[in-house]
């Protein structure tokens, strides 16, 4: 599956499982957050990704 901030492109080329990333420059990060908070953001996105992998919904 794909994590990206540019979902329209992913959908256009036919990506079936997508998760909205947190921006272009740190798709699974957050430069404005504290290191601890950022890890939480990353974990949440990865968990969404893993959920998508276990789902048959587009």
């Amino acid at each position, binding site marked *: 599956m794909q994590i990206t901030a540019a979902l329209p492109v992913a959908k256009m080329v036919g990506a079936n499982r997508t998760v909205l990333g947190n921006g*272009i420059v740190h798709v699974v990060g957050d430069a404005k957050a504290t290191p601890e908070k950022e890890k939480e953001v990353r974990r949440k996105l990865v968990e969404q990704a*893993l959920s998508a992998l276990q789902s048959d919904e587009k």
Partner: protein
Amino acid sequence: MRIVHYLNQFFGGLGGEERAGTPLEVREGALGPGKLLEQLLGGDAKVVTTLICGDNHAVENQDAMVADAIEKVRQAEADLFVAGPCFQAGRYGMAAGALCSAVQSKLSIPVITGMADENPGADLYREFLYIVDSGTNAARMREVFMTMANLARKMMSKTPIGSPKEEGYLTRGLIRDQFVEKTAGERLVDMVLAKVKGELFESEMVPTAFAPVPMPPSIKDLTKAKIMLITDGGLVPKGNPDKIQGSVATRWGSYSIDGCDDLKGEDYEISHGGYDPQFVHQDPDRLVPLDVMRQLEKEGVIGELYDEFLSTSGLANPLSNTRRMGREMAAKAKQLGIDAIILTST
């Protein structure tokens, strides 16, 4: 003729990647390339308002930014909306396409933009808009604006617009009725003969570029799954041993994360010219989420994280490269018994 012109942070004179997060700004009158546009349109053409927005902000907040911009275009009482031209800049093209499309449908005024054929914005919006084929070379700004100006004048005077080739815009995938001398049977035979002889011929209808990708079945037991990480953000080991090109990459690499819990900036570099790499330099886990995946592996949430990540650069990359690389990566994953892939993209 009242014109509103949209520019990104670079053409709007604010700066480069470091200003890509700039929200929508409004300026009175023409700015930068807009002045040339005014000149070429001539007559009473006047750029009354210029809208500038950072490329990252435009992609990350598209709906809100477009709604805001529509209001500004409405307030300016524009007769024409122009975006770009964007050349090869993908985020810029996406924003320009989204804006033109929305202005056209909500305000019913002529809209025009320009992009290279491979710009992601082109494929997203070519069916809905006249997108002038700008090519990739921004030094051709003047010629591109001339083509845009011609098309704009035709749209405003409701003059019928010719074929993509004649008028210089990207093919829209539209079918036009036309009377021709030869019957379809004759034209078909001519094409087949040309093809067999290895001569050039022009297809009357080109099939769409993206065939639907069948959805692989979902993972039934994540705790037993072997997962691989891939990125197109151009993260490579320091020294770029496989010399992966930052733009139009033809190569991809496979890099060991065996025994690694956390990616360190000093061990990597970024070969990708399309985004500000400073945040990923500080912590590459912001692009390839190794630290979190390792945690999940240790906790038993996933079965196994494959001990390499695959990487290339997606910047300005034509399908001829990316399709091939995708197939090669998929073949490797299949051979290794990978159950699922997480692809992180900038």
